[in-house]
């Protein structure tokens, strides 16, 4: 029984700080992307950044607490370590997926902002060129 309790505690002690670390990294490094995406409007960028991080925390901490429980009997330290490894591995994997999803959102916001600039190039090369003297048809 005590193995189970220690495994749970170790799981929380590893998963929660990792979540906090990833969320802080996103928050700190995503800011520049968002400011660019919102054409330098820092207040709006900070607001979206904060909301993204809140969503990130909710999903990850929700996932960690949902997957804490185990039905497996833990009789040896080996079983305890293996279970811990399984669970922490899953959490890291989900964190990774969430992290890449956030990166995708950041780059999507930024790309859309760049596309809307007046200097954005046409999507396709012109079929032909006419000189001013030729005029419109």
């Amino acid at each position, binding site marked *: 029984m005590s193995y189970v309790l220690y495994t749970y505690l170790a799981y929380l002690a590893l998963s929660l700080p990792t979540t906090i670390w990833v969320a802080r990294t996103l928050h700190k490094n995503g800011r520049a992307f968002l400011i660019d995406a919102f054409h330098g409007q820092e207040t709006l960028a900070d607001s979206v950044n904060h909301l993204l991080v809140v969503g990130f925390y909710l999903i990850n901490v929700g996932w960690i607490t949902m997957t804490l429980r185990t039905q497996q009997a833990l009789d040896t330290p080996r079983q305890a370590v293996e279970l811990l490894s399984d669970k922490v591995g899953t959490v890291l994997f989900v964190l990774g997926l969430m992290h890449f999803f956030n990166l995708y959102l950041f780059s999507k916001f930024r790309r859309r902002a760049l596309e809307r600039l007046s200097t954005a190039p046409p999507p*396709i090369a012109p079929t032909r060129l006419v000189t001013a003297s030729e005029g419109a048809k």
Partner: protein
Amino acid sequence: MTRLVIYYDDRCGLCCALRDWIGRQAQLLPVECRPKSTGENDLVVEADTGEVWSGDSAWLMVMWALRDYRSWAYRLASPWLLPTARAAFAKLSEYRGPISCRLGLTANG
């Protein structure tokens, strides 16, 4: 490039409906729609820089000028989607008469 002129077929109901629709969209650069001359069969888009796009390229340029569809213009112009987009635009142009009839769209100048 600061503005675009779209030359459309004013005898086609679908084209007139699309012209009205373009007028209601948010535009990233001013777009003016003019009836095209009778000799020209394809949709033509002309920029103030003298660049001209016709046929399926013109469709992409129309999307590019509209705020909500610019992303789609870039997406459809990617090497993966361009052949499909070209084929779809060509079919749409080719069957614009029957499509107008089916949808009950009439040319209204």
